[in-house]
Structures are given as C-alpha cells and as structure tokens.
C-alpha cells in the first residue's frame, strides 16, 4: 500500500513536471533528465557499446524530448514516451552507422569502464584482478553477442531483460505491435542463447 502511494505520488509529481515543461520551464525538464539520465544512458550504451556515442545520443534524445514535449498528452507514462524517442534516435543512428562487427569499439568500451573514477556504484571491496578480468571477458562476450543482433532485436531484448518492461510498453516505445515484440524476443533470445550458452552455464 505504501509502495502504491509512493508510486502514485511519483506519478503525480512527474505529470506536474511534464506540465511545467510544457509551459516552458527548463528547470522542470532538468529534473526529469536527472531522473532518467542514468537508465537512458545505460540503455543506449548497451546498444551502441561506446561511451561517447551513448552520451551524444542521450543528449540528442533529451533535446528531441524537450522540443516535442508539448505534444506529450499523457496517454502513456513519460518514461515510455521518452523511450520511444531514445529508441528512434538510437536505432536510426545504428542503421546509419551499420554496426556489424565489434572489434575496436568493443575494446574501447572495456577501457572506458575500467578507468571510470566517478562511478557511484563502486563495490565495497575491489575485485581481485583475475575476477575483474573474468568479468571483463564476460561483458565482452555479451557485448559481442549483442552486436550480432539487429538494432530492433537489441532494443527488444534489452528493454525486456535489463529494464523489465512489459510487452505493451516495448511495443509502444518501438511503435510496433505486441506480436512483433514477442516475435523479435523469440529470435533475439534464440541467438543469444546460442552465442552465450557457455557463459551463463558457467556462472
């Protein structure tokens, strides 16, 4: 019950922020950005595997959201609405770039993660070097497997598995039917299961 109340308050507050944005208040938009920037950045990063590109695409997405926020009617949650923008921006970018392999981009991603001093989610104790190496290898395998999916399949599997979104939310974010979402999930899972079986079997 308490959770429901908290969620309701959060929703009202979010709607209030959206209304203030629609009235042209950039401070309200700043608050919305602060709420969603980490999740959106992570989502984009997992799709493009490059920190700088993810940063730029997140910026572009938020700018687009600001420009079109007056058209937001509140039929869906703000989160689903902004995800639609994020997905359009990211999938368009991936299509243009035609990312197929993962070589250098991949190593760059690992390096960037290794030297990230500002992370707020630092573990209590540093992992041992071999553990760190193992995790890096696992992450590299996952990233490599994901790059072998089409942008649309990447989007679907990431939204489902890392964001825990429902089929209808994914469908809304991608502008497709629920059936298409389920079908894409089927093929994305099959492919990742083939590519990562030894990884998840050994964890």
């Amino acid at each position, binding site marked *: 019950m308490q959770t429901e109340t908290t969620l309701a308050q959060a929703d009202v507050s979010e709607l209030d922020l959206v209304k203030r944005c629609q009235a042209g208040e*950039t401070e309200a*938009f*700043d608050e919305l*950005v*602060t709420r969603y*920037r*980490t999740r959106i*950045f*992570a989502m984009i*990063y*997992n799709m493009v595997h490059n920190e700088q590109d993810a*940063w730029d695409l*997140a*910026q572009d997405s*938020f*700018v687009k959201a*600001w*420009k079109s926020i007056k058209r937001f009617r509140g039929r869906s949650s703000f989160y689903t609405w902004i995800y639609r923008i994020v997905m359009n921006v990211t999938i368009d970018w991936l299509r243009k770039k035609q990312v197929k392999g993962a070589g250098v981009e991949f190593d760059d991603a690992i390096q960037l*993660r290794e030297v*990230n*001093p*500002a*992370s*707020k*989610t630092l573990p209590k104790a540093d992992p041992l070097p071999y553990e760190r190496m193992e*995790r890096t290898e*696992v*992450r590299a395998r*996952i990233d490599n497997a994901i790059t072998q999916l089409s942008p649309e399949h990447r989007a679907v*599997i*990431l939204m*489902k*598995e*890392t964001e*825990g979104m429902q*089929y209808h939310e994914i469908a809304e974010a991608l502008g497709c039917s629920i*059936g298409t979402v*389920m*079908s894409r*999930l*089927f*093929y994305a*899972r099959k492919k*990742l*299961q083939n590519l*990562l*079986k030894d*990884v*998840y*079997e050994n*964890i």
Partner: protein
Amino acid sequence: MKTFEEKWTAWLDDQLTGKELADFEASLPDKEAAEAEKRDATKLGTLLKQELGAQPFSNEEFFNHQLRERIARENAQDQHGRGGERSTWWTVPRLVWTGAASLALFMICAVAVMREKAPSERSEYLTQILNMRVDPVVSPNATVSVFETKGDRVTVIWTEGLQSLPSDYAAK
C-alpha cells in the same frame, strides 16, 4: 491467432494461463527439452540483467549542464527562426499587393497599347500618302477610290487619271 514464436515467448515469460497454457504445453513435442530451454532463457535473462543492468554514468552533472546549454541554444535559434518566419509572413501581403498593383499597371498599359495598335478602318499611312501625293496640278483628273474588306484586313486603292507617280513613291 498467435504464432508459435509469440506463444513460445509468452510461455517463457510465464504469460500464458489457463486453457492457452494447457494447449500450448500439450502441443510441445518434447516437454523436457522445452523446460530446459526455458531454464536457459531465464539464465540468459539473469546474466543480461546482472552484467548490463548497472552501467556507471560518470559526469552526470556535466551531462545536465551540457544539455541545458544545448536547449538554451535551441530555444534561441527557435525564437530567431520564429522571428524570421513572422517577418516572412508580413511580406506575403506586401507581395500580394505589389503583384496586384503590377498586374493592374500592366493591364492599363496593355489596353492602351492595344488601343493604339488596333487596326483602323482605313490605312492612315496610305491615306496620308494619297493626300500628299495626288497633286491637282500634276494630275488634275485623278480620282482615288478605297475599298476595304474588314474580314481579310485588305484595303484596295483604286486610282484613275493618275499622270505620273513621284519617283520616291515606290520606295515608300
């Protein structure tokens, strides 16, 4: 009607219930293999959530700062653009009025020119020549008749009793 892929995905995510679930499970040729694949899918989901879920995001405040600057720039550009649009819209009536005035002027000039150039019932040029050249001293019995066919725009000049033509007449 759901496809096999849709049903399979719904089954993996525990979204099938009741008769739909029973029908689907009954249709599976190898239930054990399917259950093993379901466990695999769950493990894959756990792995993805664990490895990709928490992506560190550095320089968060700078991200907001950069975004604020971009939005401020975009807003300024939009306002400038709207100003430009407004001035463009203001010139449209001007263009319309200028166009209408030009057209009216053109019409007036065209009517004037057409009036001037409208073929007269009698060729003024030839009439003048005849008036000037048929000299009663030179040709006292000369008579001139003019016939005109308006439809064919032909004028026939019939002269009688003309003694001579001036030497420069043919050249005219």
